């Protein structure tokens, strides 16, 4: 509509210049005295006219080029655009919308009723209602539909919005239509894969844990029945390996279940951080006591964070047990938190320490700081789980160490919470 108005204006300007030029030349023939001046003026107007026509041609080609580019982009995106005057029902469709619908481009776009006839009968009424409601309320809409007699059974997504006139009345409906068939197929495939992944993990977990049950349950019994120290020693080796496998199985299941983050929504709540750390320390008191590890909870009792409680509990459980594993007996662990947005929580130990490279890799799956040691009881997955949880919360986690033997600090960020 705007382009047509501009063309009229340009034509009027060209006619005015042309008229002025012609009248000057005619006038110059009648008045000999002012002839040179009028001729110069007429020449100037003709040059202006040529320049103007040049600009017009350039404008026309630029417009054509932009139209071709837009058409190319629409074709690549399987997208068509359209516009419809609400009072008259007259409309415009981009070339690619015709192509998407398998129709030859025409100068007059199908009216609303013709368009509805193109829609699959099962979707027709729904689309009619959606469009009418959007026009009535002057809002936008989003709707999917199929076409009648479409052998490819494609699905289209139409998005429209109402543009109001100066008086505020709904005047024009503008929008896009996109072929989303492939996108939907990909989405369904992803959903299927994720569902299958969950079933697979569940079955694998079941099938691995079942044979581990008699080993875990009966090895202590066999140990009690053993007559010699040597036998008990050998059984302890078996038991420790069984516990290692159990740990790997459980942590692998946890990692796999948490992926992708959107698959398992978090339950956000405001948590008094100090209380949560205290209860985690309480639960691990036996392990801490057996290693004679002293742990200090330095978190401010007034500090509140926003997180999923059980997930955060898991992070502290893993960080503490990891610090315990890599700290000599009698070590000290400190848990502190710097307030702010975000809150930065730090678990620091005075254990074996790490190189810079190890600090950057320790959150990777199956990474172990001391590859030569193959320490049992560490699946190398605890910190990967921590990273997954922290990142699912929108935070980040990192480790800092002053070097071998100088302890390690693991920090992570959490969103500050409101009053609990």
């Amino acid at each position, binding site marked *: 509509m705007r382009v047509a108005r501009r063309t009229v204006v340009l034509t009027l300007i060209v006619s005015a210049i042309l008229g002025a030029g012609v009248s000057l030349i005619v006038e110059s023939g009648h008045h000999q005295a002012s002839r040179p001046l009028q001729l110069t003026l007429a020449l100037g107007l003709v040059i202006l006219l040529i320049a103007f026509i040049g600009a017009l041609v350039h404008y026309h080609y630029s417009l054509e080029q932009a139209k071709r580019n837009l058409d190319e982009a629409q074709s690549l995106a399987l997208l068509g655009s359209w516009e419809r005057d609400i009072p008259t029902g007259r409309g415009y469709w981009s070339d690619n919308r015709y192509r998407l619908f398998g129709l030859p481009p025409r100068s007059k776009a199908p009216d609303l009723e013709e368009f509805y006839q193109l829609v699959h009968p099962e979707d027709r009424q729904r689309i009619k209602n959606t469009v009418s409601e959007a026009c009535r309320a002057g809002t936008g809409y989003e709707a999917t539909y199929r076409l009648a007699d479409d052998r490819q059974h494609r699905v289209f997504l139409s998005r429209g919005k109402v543009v109001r006139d100066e008086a505020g009345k709904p005047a024009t409906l503008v929008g896009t239509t996109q072929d989303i068939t492939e996108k939907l197929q990909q989405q369904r495939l992803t959903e299927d894969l994720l569902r299958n992944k969950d079933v697979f993990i*569940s079955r694998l*977990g*079941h099938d691995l*844990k*079942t*044979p*581990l*049950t*008699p*080993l*875990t*349950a*009966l090895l*202590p*019994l066999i140990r*009690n029945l053993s007559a010699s120290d040597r036998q008990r020693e050998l059984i302890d080796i078996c038991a420790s390996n069984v516990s290692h496998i*159990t740990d790997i199985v*459980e942590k692998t*299941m946890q990692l796999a*279940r948490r992926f992708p983050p959107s698959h398992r929504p978090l339950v956000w709540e405001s948590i008094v951080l100090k209380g949560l750390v205290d209860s985690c320390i309480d639960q691990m008191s036996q392990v801490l006591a057996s290693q004679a590890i002293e742990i200090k909870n330095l978190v401010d009792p007034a500090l509140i964070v926003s997180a999923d409680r059980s997930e955060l509990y898991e992070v502290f459980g893993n960080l503490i047990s990891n610090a315990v594993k890599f700290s000599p007996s009698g070590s000290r662990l400190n848990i502190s938190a710097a307030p702010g947005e975000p809150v930065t929580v730090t678990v620091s130990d005075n254990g074996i320490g790490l190189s810079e490279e190890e600090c950057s890799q320790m959150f990777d799956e199956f990474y172990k700081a001391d590859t030569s040691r193959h320490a049992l009881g560490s699946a190398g997955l605890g910190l990967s789980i921590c990273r997954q949880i922290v990142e699912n919360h929108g935070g980040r986690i990192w480790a800092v160490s002053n070097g071998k033997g100088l302890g390690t600090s693991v920090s992570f960020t959490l969103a500050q919470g409101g009053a609990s």
Partner: protein
Amino acid sequence: MSSCEGQEAIAAGAPHVMVVDDEEVIRQTMEVLLGYAGIGVVTASGSDECLALLRGGFRGVILMDVMMPGRNGWDTIREIKQAGLLRGNIISMLTAMDVPDLQMEGLQDVVIDYITKPFEPQELLASVRRYLEFFEQLQSAE
């Protein structure tokens, strides 16, 4: 193996724990583990055997597997409930699944606990003894 606290509380020799599990290795493990702790055990390989034992007069604690072919643990509990065979029996799930199970919807009042496999034997025994004590309390209250 020393006798347990629960042993004195129950009648000697009578089976007081029923293990329902389709895996033979689990049934054997539980028989040995509970047997050494002095706790009487009967086993069932699925829903039908479990219901048959209950109809035969079993009273006590039921450790129920979840994933079983045919009718799973939850289906079996629903059937026990419908058949009026709960009769103060204590049911705890004993399963290799460790995620909240949506199928337990509506059975929270019947199932008192959820033990995951593999378990620490001492923890399992402590739990079973607690269930037995609770069962005894319910019996004496009746």
